[in-house]
Every structure is written in C-alpha cells, then in structure tokens.
C-alpha cells in the first residue's frame, strides 16, 4: 500500500499546496480579467483578454487535469480535438468574414 501511494504521488507530481498555489494564480488572473471591465486597456484590451483566457485554460488542463505529467496519448487525444475545433471553426467564421468586420 505504501509503495502504491508513493507511486501515485510521483505520477501526479503535485502536492495539495501546489494545487492551491495554482488556484491562487487562476484567481488573480480572473481578477485581472474582470478589471478590464472597469479599466480601459485601450488596444491591449482584446489581446490581453485572449491571452489570459488561454493561460487559465492551459493551467487548468496541465495541472488540475494532470495533462502535463500524464502519458502523452492523453494530450494527443485532447489537443487533437481542441486544435481541430479551433482550426475548423476559425475557418468557418472566416467564411462569414467574421474577423474583418
């Protein structure tokens, strides 16, 4: 049993304290995101929001969902779907001239 727990710990590579740290960072980024509603970010507004969104997304996937530490097949299955979705739907919106409005 003890070896077993040691093993699983290794596999997931993070302690509870680590998770809490991640959560604090996520909360901070969320705070920053919401602040764009009150403070004018000018031209940076859209890129900043999108970058923060991506960072949060990747952090949850990598740490909370362990993708960073797990077998690469999981990453393949998930990111294949994600990349395909982004690519296909971006092209789809592009045919509606969504990005040059």
């Amino acid at each position: 049993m003890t070896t077993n727990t040691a093993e699983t710990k290794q596999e997931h590579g993070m302690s509870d304290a680590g998770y809490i740290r991640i959560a604090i960072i996520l909360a901070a980024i969320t705070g920053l995101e919401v602040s764009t509603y009150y403070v004018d970010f000018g031209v940076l507004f859209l890129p900043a929001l999108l970058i923060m969104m991506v960072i949060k997304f990747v952090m949850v996937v990598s740490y909370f969902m362990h993708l960073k530490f797990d077998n690469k097949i999981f990453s393949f299955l998930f990111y294949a779907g994600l990349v395909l979705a982004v690519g296909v739907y971006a092209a789809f919106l592009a045919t509606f001239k969504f990005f040059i409005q």
Partner: protein
Amino acid sequence: MAIIERPAPTVPAIVTPTSTYGLLKRPVSTTGWRSWVFTVDHKKLGIMYAATAMFFFIVGGVEALLIRLQLAAPNGKVLNADLYNQMFTMHATTMVFLFVMPMAAGFANYFVPLQIGARDVAFPRLNAFGFWAFLFGGIFLNLAWFLGGAADGGWFMYAPNSGPVFSPSHGVDFWALGLQITGIASLTGAINLIITVLNMRAPGMTLMKMPIFTWMITVVQFLLLFAVPVITVALFLLSFQRNFGAQFFDVAAGADPLLWQHLFWIFGHPEVYILILPSFGIVSEVLPVFSRKPLFGYPFVVFSGAAIGFVGWGVWAHHMFASGLGPVSVAVFSLTTMAIAVPTGVKIINWTLTMWGGKLWFTTAMKFAIGLIVLFTVGGLSGVTHAVAPSDTQQTDTYYIVAHFHYVLFGGAVLGIFSGFYYWWPKVFGKMLNEKIGSWNFWLMVIGLNMTFGPMHILGLQGQPRRMYQWTEARAGEGFFNLAFWNLVASIGSFILSVGILMFLINVVVTARNPKKAPLDPWNARSLEWMTSNPPKEHNFDVIPTVHHLDEFFHQKFEEDEATHTMKQVRTAEEIMAEQERNADKHIHMPSPSYWPIVLAFGLPIITFGLIYSHLISVVGGVIVLFAAYGWALESSTAPDSDFETNTPGTGLDKVGANHD
C-alpha cells in the same frame, strides 16, 4: 470470473447471479434470445450490426426502386411529389446512416479485436449500448412514415426549407432526433474502438504491424469522434428551432441559412470518408490474400489513409460552391479539394501494384475488390471535375452529381462491403458462400450498377435536375442524348442491380442449408483473425498471440528459404491451431452479459418521442435512462464466479481448451 466454455447444463442447476437493485438478477444465459439481447460479445454484436444494416439496405433499396419506377417513363404516377421528396430523403438517410455506417461498425466490431489479437473490445457494455442505440434510432427515424410523413428536405436538410414553415409535418423532427440517437451510437462506438486499438493490441503488435483494415477503421473512428459532435450541434439547433421556437435559421430574424450548410458539411465531408475508408480497408486485406503477395507499400497505404482523415477536414465548402461563398473561399476550398485526390490516388496505385505480378485468384471476394478499384476510380474522376468550381457550378444539383456519388458509394463503399462478406463469411459462420452464385451476384451487380448510374452522367450533363419528381416528353429532347431513353435504361439497370443483390440473399440461404463446413484457412490468409477457429470461440484465442511481423499469421505458416529466397510453407493452419489449444490459457475472464445497455438505449427514443409529442413522455424516458445508468455504474463488468452454474471446480469445465470440438 466467468469462464468460457459453458455448455448448457443437462441438469438444471441452481443459479444465483448477483443483482444490481437487489431484484434484477444478472442475465447469464448462453443460449436462446437472451444470449443475444443481453450480450456484450463483440462478435455477436458485430453480427447484429451487420444483420440490422442489411435489413435497412433492403429498405433503402426498395425506396430507390420506387424512385426509379417513378422516373422510368414520362409523367410518372407511382409517387406524388410529396411522397417522392420523402422517398429520396429517406433513401439517402437510410443508406448512409442506417446501412453503410452500421455495416462498417459491424465489420469493425467483429474483426478489429480479432485482428489485433484481443479477446473483446475495451468497453463491452458500451459496445452493446451502441448497437441498441443505432437500432432504436433507426426505428425512430422510420416511425415518421406512419406518423404523418417522413422527412422530405433531402439528406442534407438545408435550412430554411427544414424549418417549421416549409416543413410543417413531424418528418424533420423525427429525422433530426433520430439522427441524434444514431449519432450517440457512433460516438460511443468510436471511443470504444479507438481505445481498443490503442490499448488492447496483442504483445508485439506495434501500430505499424497492425492489419490495414484495423488501421482504416481507426482513422474512421477518429473522424467519427470529431465529426459527430458537429452534426450534433447542427441537429440541436434545428430541433430547438422547430420544437422550442429558437430562430437559428429564420431568415426573417436575420439568420444566415449558410450556418446550417457549414455545420452540416463540416460533418458531411469527413462523413464521406467515414463511409468509404472501411471498404478501402477491406479490399486492402482481400487484394494481397488473393494476389499471393503482401500489400504493396503498406506504410503508404496507412499514411495516405491518415492523410485523407486529416485533409478531409479542410474541404467541406466544396459542397457549397454555388451558395455565394465569395471568390476567396471558393478558390481555397477548390484547391484543398484537388489536393485530397492525391492520397486517394496513392491508394489506388498501391492496390494496382499489389496485384501486379501476383498469382491472382479470382474468387468472388477478389472480383468485388477489383470492382471497387475500377468503379471507385470512375467516381473519383467525376469527383475531380467537381473540384473545379466553375465546372461544378454547371453540375451541381443535376444527375451528374447523383452519378458521381453513387459510383463512389455503391461502386466504392458497397462493393467493398460485399467483398468483405465473401472473404470473411467462412470466418464468421464456418461455411463458404457459394462461389457460383457469388459470380452471378457480382456480375449482375456490376452490370446493373453501371446501367443505373452510368446514364446519370449523361442525364446530368443534359440538365436533368436532381430531386425532380417527374419529367415530361416535351422536355426530354431528341437524338442520342434524349432524357427518355437514358432514364429508362437507368430504371431497368436498377432492377438488374436488385436481382444482383437478391442473389446474395439467396446465397446466404443456400449456404446456410449446405452442411459442408469451411476449411480452417480457406484462403491461405495473412492476418490474425484467421489464426483461430471458424467461427471463433467466445474468447477468440486460446492463447493471446505474440506478434513479430506484419501479416503475423502468414509468417507463422511460411518462412523464407535461405537457398532460394522464396517463401516456403513450414506449418499449416491446423498445426498452429493445435499448438494453441495445447497451450490454452487456463482461466479466461470475459465480460458478462448485462441488461443495462439495452435499457439505457431504450430510454433515448422515448425522450425524443416526448420532445415531439408531450414532454411528460420525455420525463419517463429520462427516468429510464437514469435508472439504467445507475444499474450500469453499480454492476461490475465481469460477474463473479458464483453467477455461473457450470463453474464447479474439478469438472474440467473451468478450463478453457479442455472441452471444445
């Protein structure tokens, strides 16, 4: 720990299977209808998929014959305009979603585990659920015929014609919700087979030693995994509009009808590869076996299959060239479409070179495979003419398109399926299909097919529109290219084609009546599914094979002669089989039958039925689904030993391999 060889007990024994809710005893019958309805065995499910698909093939075929009867002569009176619309819509829907896709699922279910040396799929209960969801979805789709008329908007159901204003009957509701259910079946099936292939290959079977059929099926499952959710979205939007007053395709409210077209074809183009790749996989097995040569350029066939699967996502708008996409989009999608012809061409070259210099053996399976190469190429060539957007603008919505897709679907997908029938029949049923009837089957189908769909090229180029319910003498024209003559030829052809298909059904009956058993390895085959008995035992293999080569079975039978550098037979299939039986695994854990897959699947059409008629019914369906889901979650996949009466230690029955014939 259920064991395998469970002969029906001569003395009724007291059985106390575990139960889930304290009242429902786990089904353990190995004979009778229960052994089919509650089965989780991938082989039984494969047969059930294929048999159901065959039934729908006949339904779709009868619909096609009615269409051709109507068009055989001017002013057809067989169908009125309304029924005609329902007929071609349901014909296509049935052929695509209820025949070719589930037939491929049947082949995949049966042969993928055998080809990778596994004893079952990764999720056996999910597998059973998939079959039942497909069956119930298919029935649900066809219920509309009896409840006010079937869907009539064509198989791609363009908006806004599919909206409540232009399609007031419940047909489109049944269509959208029914496809939603079969979509769930496809999705669960895809997840199941992907994980099976990733995770359950026999030791030594690397991805590049995997049989080519399994490879093509894997590509298809990835396409399904990512394409099904797209049509799921489209169908939800449609249902929400029709049933809950959403506005997605309501042009008056400012909606863009192209939204539907995009979503449908983002799914739809991968879908055409979902239809054709399984058959490509089948002929890639058949051609080497009957050419007595390994598949030429195996890695190229694998990678071109994967490339098709990938590029197939970037071409969807070639179905929309005439919809006002704008010049940039048209140019881009025109180019990607031409590009995708390349990997397809690679495959055709590889098949041809496989036969080149081989000792060809013209069995029926081989004839169908060669038929596929030839006829698919015809369809592929007319396909390239659509890739050229200006030319397509002339062809779109004419019979030229109908000709094209029947050459690729019938000449491609369906001939491949028939090739698979003849090739694998002895594996599945232990008997050989009659070759003489097979020959009639093949030639009548090929002649009928070309007579039916060949003239449609002419009809189309002469301007006969697709989905036209009647034509008149006055507009038929004169001379060699007059519509009247070629329409009649096509209609006669469709009946010859039907007789060809009938030959197959006759062959099945004749074969079933014939007591003669098939030899163990009738074709001198190459891949693992042949390295076991005909039909395979419930646990597939007495010992899980260890794989060293692509075409492992062949390499167990043949070794290279050092002196002459030719392949020399060193062992027979019977010897390999006998050796496996001697070393049979003692205790094999197989998943146990379950009630929950069929119950869960049954809840789905009840929910959708309620969405159309009364939400109260939906609640009932929802309760059934929840009830079954809990039952499912609470029972373990493999029932404990005590569930089976025959598992008395010391009787010898607990030892697989000790007691089979």
